[in-house]
């Protein structure tokens, strides 16, 4: 069964790398949707159903923490696992994301193995 994924990052480079890494991590990918910030992600989710969201934190317009908070407060999305993929590696940020309901946290820079390990048990 394939998995539709939404990748949220203001860097097109990171969105491209994550897509490649998901393939390397042998995730059974279906459609991969992209968004450059939280606002764009919420728009995308109005028309697309996904089974996994990978999101950066530091983004313009709406950051990843606000996006996470909004999605976890919405019955339509709160069951969708959200993994934060970000340079924001401080314990305070990690704890904040986990307290808000993030399924996992991957610090940039990352390897395909780290992504695979993090997604094991989530998807």
């Amino acid at each position: 069964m394939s998995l539709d994924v939404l990748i949220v990052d203001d860097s097109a480079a990171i969105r491209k790398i994550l897509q490649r890494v998901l393939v390397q991590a042998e995730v059974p990918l279906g459609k991969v949707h992209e968004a450059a910030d939280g606002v764009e992600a919420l728009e995308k989710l109005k028309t697309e159903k996904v089974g996994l969201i990978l999101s950066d934190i530091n983004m313009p317009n709406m950051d990843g923490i606000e996006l996470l908070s909004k999605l976890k407060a919405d019955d339509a999305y709160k069951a969708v696992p959200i993994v934060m993929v970000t340079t924001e590696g401080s314990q305070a940020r990690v704890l904040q994301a986990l307290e808000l309901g993030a399924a996992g946290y991957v610090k940039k820079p990352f390897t395909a193995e780290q992504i695979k390990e993090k997604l094991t048990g989530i998807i």
Partner: protein
Amino acid sequence: MSQSKLESAQIEAAVRQATHEVFSTMLNLPLEDQPAYEEIAADPPGSHDGVEALVGIGGYWTGTGRIWCNSKFACTLAGALLMTPYEALNEEVLDAISEVANMIIGGAKATFEDQLGTLALSIPTVVFGRNYRTRSAGVTSWMVIPFHCQGEDLQVRFFLMQTKGQAAPTPRPEMVHTL
């Protein structure tokens, strides 16, 4: 911390660790350390050629991290990151350099947060071209941490000082626990 600036050795160690981590993990390129030095900020600032990505740090401590390389090496870095060859600067190359800077400065920032409390990171800004100049208000000197990679230069410049008039943050109790 009682001092108003971080020790040069602390900045150098954090930047080197973060840069090596990015090069070994995301770029798979060899990186050779060159001696670090202090650069007095010239007035007026000197001109540069190439590509430079700047990331701001804010909070109880404030500063800027800058990554500089020439255009050719910027294409090499972008090619290694995205596994696509680039012959000239374009949107993808500039975006890739922004992300490399974000990861290096963000990695160093995470090290400093162990001592200094939570710091915020800005979205990167890229400057490129010939004879460009940059000026950062209040910065009197930069810590320059240079590297060689495949015969090309990469320079990381860093400045971090205590923010005037800001009260020290109260650490969250759970921050003392190891995750």
